[in-house]
């Protein structure tokens, strides 16, 4: 009886080895995947010393995994912010290239200085006009860029919301399968891998925290505490805003009817791509747009023409630089949304639009038909008081809206430079933060991978052990067969 028992045990060993080899194959196949956790067969001894694979185990490290989820969310939020800032920085570029609004303002100032010394030279007047045109266009383009960045961020948020919804639907199926599998006691390790993968992907878009209930049923909350998934996915919605000009605010993201982005949100998100994009769309780009609008407003104000009659009774009017609300001058010291997009040179000073270059020197750009706005009543060719006045106005301190976060009382050029400073300071700190967070994410992912991933060499050595054990078992069977044979021959 003991020989057949030995045969049984050897047979069970063969089948266990087969199953173990299958597990090793799975491990090797999944070695390259970031979302594959190493599996192992749990071998138990049963009645009579035979062995069997009781269940398939899966290595897991919940602490590291949770850390990885939060590191992923923070990094992708920061990445979105840095990407947005880099796009905004296109309006500044390398200071050496003199592409910024501040640099164009400097060029205009220089052109005016040259013109002030030789006011009867139409070429120099043309030069001033070109400088002014370049400046107005730079402001228009910068404003366009900012709108573009905001629209891109908005599109990214909408895409993020779609992805979250897709992933949640997928999650629902996997979660249901897991709950069923757990009840049935079947191998659920592959579903667990899928669930972790979905969570990882989800954390790129939105900061999440999870908790597991009995029967492997998982509940997902956002990092702000809004329920994202409980048995069924909650609806995540955002109406895309197609055009985001200055002053327009984008739509908030709602989860289950609760706003999670924007100023009015009760439970605002704290990380994830959606959060990062919302910071760019609703905060950073808006502030930068305000700064551009203030520069444009300062320009209109500095170049405005005043009533030259005595006593002066008429209001100031927009001169060389005018805007959508012209010829009135915008209210001082407060942002006038969209001014940077609408600022342009006054056609009355542009010969190609039927204007007259001499008005740069003589005044009367705002209203050529009204003699009250003409500074040079004699019409003398070298009248430079108006140009000198403009140069003084450009270097004079004026007050800007403190909400712009740039220096509120300085010259126009100083404000433009401080706007550049503000943008680059944001960029520097976000880029540095991104560097740290990337390193953290990399470190966490590496630790997690080391703790839960597959080492092929290890699998191969295990396979050699299995091979050994398999041939030993086979030899055992052969030997037992021989022994049984000899026994049977002896009987015969």
């Amino acid at each position: 009886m003991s020989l057949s028992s030995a045969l049984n045990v050897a047979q069970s060993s063969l089948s266990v080895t087969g199953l173990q080899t299958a597990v090793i194959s799975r491990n090797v196949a999944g070695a390259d995947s970031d979302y594959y956790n190493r599996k192992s067969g749990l071998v138990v001894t049963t009645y009579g010393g035979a062995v069997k694979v009781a269940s398939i185990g899966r290595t897991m490290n919940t602490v590291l995994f949770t850390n990885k989820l939060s590191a992923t969310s923070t990094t992708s939020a920061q990445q979105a912010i840095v990407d947005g800032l880099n796009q905004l920085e296109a309006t500044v570029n390398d200071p050496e290239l003199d592409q910024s609004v501040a640099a164009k303002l400097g060029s205009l100032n220089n052109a005016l200085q040259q013109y002030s010394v030789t006011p009867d030279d139409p070429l120099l007047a043309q030069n001033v006009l070109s400088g002014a045109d370049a400046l107005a266009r730079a402001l228009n383009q910068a404003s366009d860029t900012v709108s573009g960045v905001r629209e891109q961020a908005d599109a990214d948020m909408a895409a993020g919301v779609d992805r979250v919804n897709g992933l949640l639907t997928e999650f629902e199926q996997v979660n249901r399968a897991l709950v069923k599998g757990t009840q049935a006691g079947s191998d659920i390790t592959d579903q667990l891998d899928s669930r972790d993968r979905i969570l990882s992907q989800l954390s790129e878009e939105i900061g999440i925290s999870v908790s597991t209930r009995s029967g492997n049923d998982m509940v997902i909350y956002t990092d702000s505490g809004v329920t994202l998934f409980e048995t069924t996915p909650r609806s995540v919605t955002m109406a895309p805003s197609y055009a985001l000009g200055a002053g327009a605010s984008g739509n908030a993201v709602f989860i289950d009817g609760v706003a999670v982005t924007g100023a009015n949100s009760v439970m605002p998100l704290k990380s994830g791509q959606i959060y990062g994009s919302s910071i760019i769309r609703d905060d950073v780009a808006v502030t930068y747009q305000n700064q551009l609008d203030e520069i444009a407003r300062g320009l209109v104000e500095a170049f405005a023409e005043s009533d030259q009659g005595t006593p002066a009774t008429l209001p100031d009017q927009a001169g060389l630089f005018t805007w959508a609300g012209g010829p009135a001058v915008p209210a001082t010291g407060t942002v006038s949304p969209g001014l940077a997009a609408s600022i342009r040179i006054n056609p009355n000073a542009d010969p190609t639009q039927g204007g007259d270059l001499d008005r740069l020197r003589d005044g009367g750009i705002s209203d050529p038909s009204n003699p009250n706005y003409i500074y040079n009543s004699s019409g003398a060719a070298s009248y430079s008081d108006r140009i000198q006045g403009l140069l003084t106005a450009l270097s004079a301190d004026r007050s800007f809206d403190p909400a712009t976060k740039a220096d509120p009382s300085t010259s126009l050029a100083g404000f433009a430079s401080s706007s550049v400073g503000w943008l680059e300071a944001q960029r520097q700190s976000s880029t540095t933060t991104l560097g740290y967070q990337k390193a953290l994410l990399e470190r966490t992912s590496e630790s997690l991978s080391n703790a839960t991933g597959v080492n092929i060499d290890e699998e191969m050595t295990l396979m050699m052990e299995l091979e050994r054990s398999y041939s030993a078992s086979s030899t055992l069977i052969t030997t037992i067969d021989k022994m049984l044979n000899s026994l049977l021959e002896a009987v015969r």
Partner: protein
Amino acid sequence: MKTSSVSSSSLSTMLRSTILKAQEKLVGANKEMTTGRYADIGVSLGARTGTTVNLRNQHDRTAGIIDTNGLVSQRLQVTQQALGGMLDTAQNFLKTLLSVRNGESGVDVLVSEATNNLQATIGAANSSMGGQYIFAGINTQQQPLTDYFSSATAPSKAAADAAFTSYFGFAQDDPAAANITAADMTTFLQTDFSNEFTDPAWGTNWSTALDKNIQSRISPNEVVEVSANANSQQMRDLAKVYTMVADTGTKGLNQNAYQALVDEAIKVVNGAIQGLIANQAQLGSAQARVTTASERLTTQRDILAQQIISNEGVDPYEAKVRVDQLTTQVETAYALTVKLQSLSILNYMR
């Protein structure tokens, strides 16, 4: 049970990311080495980028003013030269007047010299630089003085003739001129004739210049005036004295009236000479101010350029060392990748 502490995927990811990071840094370091400036000024300087943009603005502005100062001082120089010429002419004329008074030269010499001088002075006052009439005040596109001799109907000449005729009752070349008394002559010269050279007659008949002078900004907060103007007293005096001698029937006067005219002329030309010298002194101080301002601005511009470099610049030697280090790092990573690739248990399982 998992026993190993490193997974195959993290092993290869680590090497790959090391190479990628080093390559990224290498691009920046290469750029810094060749340009001597930060690869990404914004990220490197942060808020200080605003300062460097401002510095660049100031630098360009300063350079711009230095340029225009060159033009201003050129204009001052040309004006100085014109004034110098006028002064020489006036001084020579004074000599002639004195010698005529002493009876050393004749009336013909005097009249022809006055005629020439009037032309020369009008020419000098009408001199231009780069298309700008420098004595015209701010009305630089119009010749300031009308040519007295251009035609018989030149307004200045017509007015002078009319003044003479209305006072004496006959024209300058009328023989009756010989009967003019010295007292009559002096009164005429000091009243009706003199009025031709004060406003409004001066502005109507002689000059289109505006009293307002050209002002130029020679430093961010300093403005100088080019104060030579065809309407200034000395210019009027010059025109007056030359016209007086050339075209008040000088040749036909009796000795007493002639003497009175010469005396009056000496008085006027003396005043003009003093005015011209004072004017030259004024311009001289303006020239000095321009020169001082330019020197100061040049120093300032150089300091600004230095500041820009020290703000944006990196040490190229340090960058070179970094490039070398990174190159070594990348090479090591490559070598390790190959090594690790061959380090597999599969190679030994045969």
